[in-house]
C-alpha cells in the first residue's frame, strides 16, 4: 500500500497532519489561556482584544484515509485482488465573522482518488466566498454569497469530502465520484434564505454561476474516451435547493434542481471541439433521524443532452445522445451505542432508463458490456466514533454493474466485471 504513495505524497500528508494538529492544539491552549489571563489585573485589555479574535475566527479541518480491497473491478487505484490506499482527503478551512451581517470563509482541499488524481493527488480551493446578510428578522434571514460556493445538491454533496458527515465510506451512487466535478461547487453567487415557522424550518439556496468541470474523469464518462486531450468548460448554470426540517433535523425533506451547461475547450483539429452538454436534473430527499434509528431515501432523475459528439464511423459528422439517468437508494442506520452505528443500504443507478439493462448499448458499436450502463449495490457498514474527533469504519459492498466506477482505475472497458465485491476500511479525523 505504501508503494502506491510516492515520497512526495507521504511528506506532504505528514506535513499537513502536523499543521492540522498544531493548529488544533494552539486553539485549545488559547481557549484555556483566556480565562486564566482574565484573572490578572489586565483582564480588561485581554478580554476586549483577544476574545473577539478567538470567537470570530474559526479554523476547522478534516482528514481521512481509506483502504480498499475488491474483486472484479478497481476502486481508488489497484484494489482488485490486492489492497489500495488510494483515497486520501484532507481539508482545512477558516471562517471569519467580520460583522454581524458580513462573513468570509474559505477551504482548501487535498484529495487523492486513485488514478483519476494520480498518486500525488490534487490540491484545490474547495470554497471561498463572502457572505452578506442584507435582511433579517426574528424568524429568518435573507442574504447573498459570492465566490466559490458548494452546491447544495441532495443531502450529502455540500460536505461530500468530509468523511464524518456521511454514514458510509462510499457515498450513495447518486453522488458517484465520476460526476463529482459536475456538482461539487460553483463560481458565482448564491442567494439564500432561512425561514423558521412553528411547523419547521425552511432553507432555500439558489446558486448561479459556472461549475468547475475541467476533470478528465467527467470528460471520459461523457465521451467514453479516456484519451481525449481537451477540457470541459462551463456555461452559465444554476442549482437550487429547498430544505425543510422538522424538530431541528429529526425529519428532513429536500428538493434540489440543477440546470448545468457544458462546453469543450480543445485544439482546432480536435474532433470534440464543438461538444456541448446540457444537464437537467432534480433530486428528492427524505430523512428521519431518531435517537437510535435513521432512515434516508433519495431519488434523482437526470436528463442529459450530449451534442456534437464526433461519429467514429463517419468522420466529419456528429451525433447527439440524450439518455435519462436515474439514481435512488434507501438506507437504514441504527445506533447500537451512541458511538457505534450500523448502516444498510440498497442503492441503484441507471445510465439510461430506456435501456435499463444495457441491452441496446451492448448490441451496438462499440459492443461494450451491458454492465457499463447500470449499478446496483447492497452496502453494509459499521461506523465507530472513537472520540468526537476520530472515526473508524468498515463496509462491504455487493455490487452488480460497473456504470459508476472510474475509467482511469479500470481502463479496459470491455473487461469490466458485472458482479463484484468491495471491502473497505477508513480512518478519519475532524476538528
Amino acid at each position, binding site marked *: 500500500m505504501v508503494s502506491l504513495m510516492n515520497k512526495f505524497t507521504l511528506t506532504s500528508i505528514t506535513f499537513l497532519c502536523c499543521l492540522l494538529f498544531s493548529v488544533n492544539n494552539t486553539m485549545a491552549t488559547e481557549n484555556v489561556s483566556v*480565562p486564566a489571563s482574565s484573572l490578572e489585573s489586565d483582564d480588561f485589555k485581554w478580554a476586549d482584544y483577544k476574545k473577539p479574535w478567538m470567537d470570530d475566527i*474559526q479554523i*476547522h479541518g478534516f482528514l481521512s484515509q481509506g483502504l480498499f480491497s475488491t474483486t472484479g473491478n478497481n476502486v481508488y487505484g489497484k484494489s482488485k485482488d490486492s489492497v489500495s490506499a488510494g483515497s486520501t482527503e484532507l481539508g482545512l478551512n477558516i471562517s471569519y465573522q467580520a460583522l454581524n451581517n458580513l462573513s468570509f*470563509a474559505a477551504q482548501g482541499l487535498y484529495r487523492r482518488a486513485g488514478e483519476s488524481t494520480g498518486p500525488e493527488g490534487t490540491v484545490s480551493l474547495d470554497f471561498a466566498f463572502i457572505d452578506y446578510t442584507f435582511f433579517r428578522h*426574528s424568524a429568518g434571514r435573507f442574504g447573498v454569497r459570492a465566490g466559490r460556493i458548494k452546491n447544495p445538491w441532495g443531502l450529502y454533496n455540500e460536505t461530500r469530502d468530509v468523511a*464524518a458527515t456521511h454514514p458510509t465510506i462510499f457515498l450513495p451512487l447518486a453522488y458517484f465520484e465520476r460526476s463529482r466535478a459536475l456538482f461539487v461547487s460553483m463560481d458565482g453567487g448564491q442567494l439564500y434564505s432561512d425561514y423558521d415557522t412553528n411547523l419547521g424550518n425552511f432553507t432555500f439556496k439558489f446558486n448561479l454561476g459556472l461549475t468547475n468541470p475541467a476533470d478528465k474523469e467527467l470528460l471520459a464518462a461523457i465521451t467514453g474516451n479516456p484519451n481525449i486531450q481537451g477540457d470541459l468548460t462551463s456555461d452559465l448554470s444554476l442549482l437550487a435547493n429547498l430544505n425543510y426540517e422538522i424538530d*431541528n*433535523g429529526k425529519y428532513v425533506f429536500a428538493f434540489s434542481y440543477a440546470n448545468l451547461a457544458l462546453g469543450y475547450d480543445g485544439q482546432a483539429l480536435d474532433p470534440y471541439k464543438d461538444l456541448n452538454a446540457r444537464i437537467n436534473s432534480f433530486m428528492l430527499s427524505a430523512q428521519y433521524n431518531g435517537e437510535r434509528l435513521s432512515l434516508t431515501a433519495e431519488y434523482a432523475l437526470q436528463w442529459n443532452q450530449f451534442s456534437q459528439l464526433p461519429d467514429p464511423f463517419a468522420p466529419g459528422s456528429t451525433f447527439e445522445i440524450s439518455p435519462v439517468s436515474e439514481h435512488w437508494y434507501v438506507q437504514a442506520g441504527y445506533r447500537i451505542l*451512541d458511538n457505534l452505528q450500523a448502516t444498510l443500504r440498497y442503492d441503484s443507478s441507471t445510465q439510461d432508463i430506456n435501456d435499463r439493462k444495457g441491452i441496446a448499448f451492448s448490441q451496438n458499436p462499440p459492443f461494450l458490456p451491458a454492465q457499463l450502463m447500470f449499478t446496483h449495490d447492497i452496502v453494509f457498514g459499521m461506523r465507530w466514533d472513537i472520540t*468526537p474527533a476520530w472515526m473508524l469504519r468498515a463496509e462491504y459492498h455487493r455490487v452488480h454493474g460497473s456504470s459508476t466506477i472510474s475509467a482511469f482505475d479500470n481502463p479496459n472497458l470491455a473487461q469490466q466485471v458485472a458482479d463484484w465485491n468491495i471491502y473497505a476500511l477508513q480512518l478519519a479525523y475532524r476538528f
Partner: protein
Amino acid sequence: MDFRLFNTSSTLKKQRTFCLFLCACLFILSSHSVHALEVITHPDNIDQLRQLEQQHNLASVFAMRTLYWPNGERIRVIVMPDDNPIHQRFVKENLHLFPHQLRRTWNRLTYTGTGQAPSTVDSAAEMLELVNQTKNAIGYIDNGESHE
C-alpha cells in the same frame, strides 16, 4: 377571619394534609431544580435571555439558526463535547434533540463555510468561566454538579 367558624376537626385534617402535600411538592421541585441542567448566560444578557425564550425555542439557538439576541447582538453559543454526559443530557432534556442531530447541523455549517459552530469547552468549570466572561454568551451547567 371567618374561616375559624368552619374550622372543624375534619377541615383541620384536610388543611394539615394539604400543607404536607405542599411541602412535598416544594421538596420535589427544589430537589429537582438542584439536579437540573440550566441555561446560563453572561450577566448582562439575563433580560435578553428572558425575551429570547418568549420568541424562540432554545433548540434553534443551539442549532445556530437563531443567531441574534433580541437587541441584535450575535449570540455566542458555548457547548461541551458530543460525548460529555452533561452535554448529552442537556441536549435531550432541555432541547429535546439528540446530540447527533446538532452535530449534523454544525458540520454542515462548518464544512460549507455557511456558518460557525459553537465554541467548545471541556469542563463545567470552563463553561462557567467562559460564559461569565464572554459578552452575549450562552451555555449550560449541571446545577447539581456546581453545588458540590
